[in-house]
């Protein structure tokens, strides 16, 4: 923060002291690697993607022709895009609340002193360190309607990933399972920042564990919950790998499950139409920006900073 102050002062023609110059130099030195990374890997691609969304792109990135909003008008008439947007939102509606609620409860439980605590923590975190593709392949076999463990164990005949009515829920369950560990870790670190005195005071006043949870834990954990919420909503709206790996192209449930990023991938890489693919992803960017802005406004109502 001092760095930005000295920067602000500089134009006021005050002579910088050696200490301030040092601060300036080292400050920039430390943030430049990150900034370069952000600019090269994030900012430039964003700008280029927006530009490409207004192009009829040529093969192998050569010969892009600027066509204005042609891709956008095509997208507005493309019912598949809107279905995909709906699918994406439906996925997020399951993945985000469930992964947060379960993680919160589990984090509170795992934060107590108990036997085998580290073992449980490791178990819940395991899905995070497994490659998403491997997760998807394992679940694909669990869900398999002919040979799958789920159907054979419980004697069911459910087409988990081929029935359009339930396939999106099946996919979301994988999503919840695989993100749980990450959320738990964040919540546990948040929980450990809450001073123990509050709980002692509540105990003396005769509050039950549940009351303490809702009146102490949740309010004091709200900044962490907010952070998890924002990142999870963004992450869930970008779901791709699970769908891509679990659902075959000839799966009849695919139209009811495919997400915006899935559609983007197919247009850009299977069909080679980078321009239209970019248009789809720009739509996603706008959706995410809107959702995030509302969340930033909404946080004032429920997030308590110390």
């Amino acid at each position, binding site marked *: 923060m001092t760095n930005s102050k000295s920067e602000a002062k500089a134009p006021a023609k005050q002579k910088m002291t050696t200490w301030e110059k040092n601060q300036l130099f080292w400050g920039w030195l430390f943030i430049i690697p990150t900034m370069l990374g952000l600019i090269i890997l994030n*900012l430039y*691609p964003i700008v280029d*993607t927006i530009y490409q969304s207004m192009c009829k792109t040529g093969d192998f990135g050569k010969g892009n022709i600027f066509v204005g909003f042609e891709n956008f008008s095509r997208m507005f008439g493309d019912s598949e895009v809107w279905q995909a947007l709906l699918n994406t939102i439906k996925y997020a509606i399951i993945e985000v609340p469930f992964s947060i609620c379960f993680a919160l409860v589990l984090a509170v439980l795992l934060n107590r002193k108990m036997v085998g605590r580290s073992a449980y923590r490791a178990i819940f975190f395991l899905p995070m360190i497994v490659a998403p593709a491997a997760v998807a392949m394992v679940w694909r076999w669990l869900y398999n*309607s002919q040979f799958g463990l789920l159907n054979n164990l419980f004697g069911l005949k459910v087409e988990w990933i081929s029935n359009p009515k339930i396939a999106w829920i099946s996919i979301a369950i994988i999503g919840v399972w695989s993100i749980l560990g990450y959320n738990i870790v964040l919540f546990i670190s948040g929980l450990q920042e809450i001073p123990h005195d509050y709980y002692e005071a509540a105990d003396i006043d005769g509050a039950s564990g549940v009351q303490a949870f809702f009146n102490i834990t949740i309010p004091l954990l709200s900044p962490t919950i907010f952070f998890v919420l924002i990142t999870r909503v963004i992450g869930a709206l970008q779901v791709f790998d699970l769908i891509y790996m679990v*659902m075959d192209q*000839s799966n*009849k449930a695919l139209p009811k499950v495919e997400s915006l990023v899935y559609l*983007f991938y197919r247009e850009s890489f299977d069909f080679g139409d980078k321009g239209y693919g970019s248009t789809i992803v720009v739509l996603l960017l706008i959706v*995410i920006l809107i959702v995030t802005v509302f969340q930033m406004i909404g946080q004032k109502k429920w997030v308590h*900073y110390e």
Partner: protein
Amino acid sequence: MKKRLISALLVSAMCLSLTACGGSGGSSDGGSSDGGGSSSGAFRVAIWDNNQQPGIQEICDLFTEETGIDVQVEVKEWDSYWTLLEAGASGGDMPDVFWMHANNSQIYMNNDMLLKLDDYIDKSDKIDMDKYLPQVTALYTYDGSYYAIPKDYDTIALWYNKTMFDEAGLEYPNENWTWDDLYDTALKLTDKDAKKYGYALNVTNDQDSYWNIIYSKGGYVLSDDHKSSGYDDPKTLEAMDFVGKLLSDVCPPASVMAETQTDVLFQSGTAAMITQGSWMVPAFKQNEYTAENCDVAMIPYDKETGIRASICNGLGWAAAASTKRPDDCWKLIEWLGSEEMQIKQAELGVTMSAYEGTSDAWASNTDLFNLAAHLDMAEESAVEGVENKVVEYPFTYNAVKWTSQCQKDLVAAWDDPSLMEEKCKEFAGTMNDIIASESK
């Protein structure tokens, strides 16, 4: 206050980086993730078939012994192979030597992404383009120039499970079978309650499944001038109607085939018959179950037309136009295409080789199966009144686009074959639009 600032910063940074991932993740991954190998001096060779990897590596090792050039064979799965190759082509970081496929060759050749081989071929004493199967050479010739040396060719045949036939007391398939024989026998083998099926049709691979039926029944997929769709041709529709009959009566439900690949269904004894390409031989050879229980016969013909059709495709060895070592690339391609190594490839059972006179070497690579079924396809028919027709793989400038679209548009018809005619006609229009819009 400070906390709020930090969290706001974190959030905005996340927001940015996450969206950027969505926007460009694919392309930036593709370009850089595998770039590391090239600096070590090893030569990068990319292929997509795991089953062929050991054989190809062996041939490349011989090349290393001969020339001292290190060769590293990388296998990428079919889908990611093309994503990576395309990203590499756009970003100027392609593997040095790689496989080319008829689906994609036109667009790569047209955009000067492949090394032109004409001068090298002229100077070479090992390569004579007349020695290769002309159907394959044609796929990699553009504007009279050669861009790849044929590696192999493939034909489709009917694989069957002997044990399942024995149990049902039925005669094995043979070269006299018509498609109706296949249907009738498959019907006898199908017991839906016991989850046993007579046939499995791989709808996601047009080449080894329904395209053969279309051509056998006198229809076509793409017109001879490569300009218009044949999906609305009456003969094609008739053939697709038969495909629908197979799907609804003797195949596992479409959802089962979408969840479990048809070759897995065949290898697990769920489906008694399957039409498969010759490239699957190494896999079936290695699989204990298929090695013990399965064999192969010629693909059936159609009673009315008397045509026995097999789509024939062949891969080519191509090099990147952007490679830093074009001469080494050529040395390797020349090696892989030489008569000696083409025979070696056949002997190892990697695939049938494109070089003339190599078929005996391939036929003898295993005695588990009657491999003549695959080879006879390219010969004169031994059955009277039947014509063996090797159909050149249908391609256009960007064939991937309409073949992928087809997989997507026909899903409803696989699930409910009564929609077949409607969906095929609909797709014919879409396909014509796609071909018309292909940039030239």
